[in-house]
């Protein structure tokens, strides 16, 4: 689905919800938001509560006269728009929830990437290519959008991740169409982009997508590239000198300097 289509569907959804025959549905949605915000919930319960409500409400709305003729597509679009509508309102409560380790994990990853600033593409066996630098910066820029307030729905966050990886993948396609470019080549690029960016809320973003992007909608290619990002994050979290092509001494020296600069 394209971005503009996503926003068009959203506008259409909000428009229809203003129709007089949707009054009761709107009240239910408002009631849900109010109750959710006033009830303490652990992250797992919060995720299933929201998902269940989206599913139930999307089912009701797609039976409603305004949506009835849209068929299967209608249901998918309604649930997409509902997901966005609800999570925009619940965002502050469910993003980096208090009773989770998200904030701590975010900080640990941030510190790890800061300490690893001495790592160069060579240390990840990334071949030196003229366009590497540009691609890394563009990919990091895309990934940084995860923290933009403009992109607060799980779908929009997922798109930020996929767009970032897409830039790296296009670079590899440009250079390696002959031998085929697979995960062997792509993963180191993603890892280096993460180190370059030093994101502050990466775990929060990944878990937010995982918790609130319903399973039926996080699959196939999107699920694959989400996993790529998730595994790159895990790699950095657990990194030691054996993770890179570097001598233990050089690694230790780099880490010492990295710590000092923090």
């Amino acid at each position, binding site marked *: *689905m*394209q*971005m503009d*289509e*996503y926003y068009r569907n959203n506008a259409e959804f909000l428009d229809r919800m203003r129709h007089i025959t949707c009054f009761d549905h709107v009240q239910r949605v408002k009631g849900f938001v109010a109750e959710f915000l006033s009830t303490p919930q652990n992250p797992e319960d919060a995720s299933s509560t929201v998902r269940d409500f989206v599913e139930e409400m999307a089912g009701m709305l797609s039976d409603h006269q305004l949506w009835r003729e849209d068929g*299967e*597509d209608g*249901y*998918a*679009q309604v649930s*997409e728009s509902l997901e966005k509508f609800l999570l925009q309102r619940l965002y502050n409560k469910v993003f980096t929830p208090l009773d989770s380790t998200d904030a701590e994990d975010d900080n640990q990853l941030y510190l790890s990437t800061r300490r690893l600033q001495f790592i160069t593409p060579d240390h990840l*066996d990334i071949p030196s290519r003229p366009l590497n630098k540009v691609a890394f910066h563009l990919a990091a820029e895309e990934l940084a959008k995860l923290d933009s307030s403009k992109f607060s729905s799980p*779908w929009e966050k*997922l*798109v930020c991740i*996929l*767009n970032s*990886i*897409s830039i790296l*993948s*296009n670079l*590899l*396609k440009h250079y390696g*169409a*002959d*031998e*085929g*470019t*697979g*995960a*062997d080549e*792509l*993963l*180191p690029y993603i890892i280096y982009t993460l180190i370059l960016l030093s994101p502050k809320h990466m775990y929060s973003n990944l878990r937010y997508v995982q918790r609130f992007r319903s*399973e*039926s*909608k996080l*699959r*196939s*290619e*999107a699920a*694959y*590239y989400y*996993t*790529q990002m*998730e*595994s790159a994050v*895990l*790699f950095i979290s*657990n990194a030691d000198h*054996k*993770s*890179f092509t570097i001598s233990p001494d050089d690694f230790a020296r780099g880490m010492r300097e990295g710590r000092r600069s923090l």
Partner: protein
Amino acid sequence: MASRGGSAHRANGSRDKICHFKLVLLGESGVGKSCLVLRFVKGEYSDHLEATIGAAFLTQTVNLDDTTVKFEIWDTAGQERYHSLAPMYYRGAQAAVVVYDISDGDTFVRAKNWVKELQRQASPSIVIALAGNKADLKDIRKVHIEDAQSYAEDNGLLFMETSAKSDQNVQELFLAIANKLPKSASGSPRTGTLEPNVSDRMRQQGNGGCCKS
């Protein structure tokens, strides 16, 4: 007979079942995992891929007599330093292709380790295929076909020597996997999904759901 890249529906109607399967690719870096899949998907040794973000994730359908199998192929980074990340990729996979290079004995050792790990940690019903790739390099072969064959038999694996370069046994390998996969209870049902598409192109996901008629 397998046919490539076709639609899920036959000309004579739409009675076919469509089964979605997640297939993970494992094997040392450089054994030609991505070439093998490129060959399977595009039918050519090298070509540009338009539909997806890159060659790390690809899909391909195989038509069997009464079902259409759609493979979602997950490539993994084969370097040793990424080994511990592999479970994130093979989690939930219904099939795995473990690739080694017949001209490099170390890659066969690595492949056997992958098989062991899959048997221990992946889904118990996973269909595992062992592919001895670069079969065109038989003049400098290091891994005897008999050794690999008997290892595969002992471990209940599908086995073929393949060559992405000379298109040997590539379609056959995936067809054999498709035939061996259970067609009744895989994956989860699908609704029309709206997946974000990176390249801002609309790609329609199959609506039929796994194994729905």
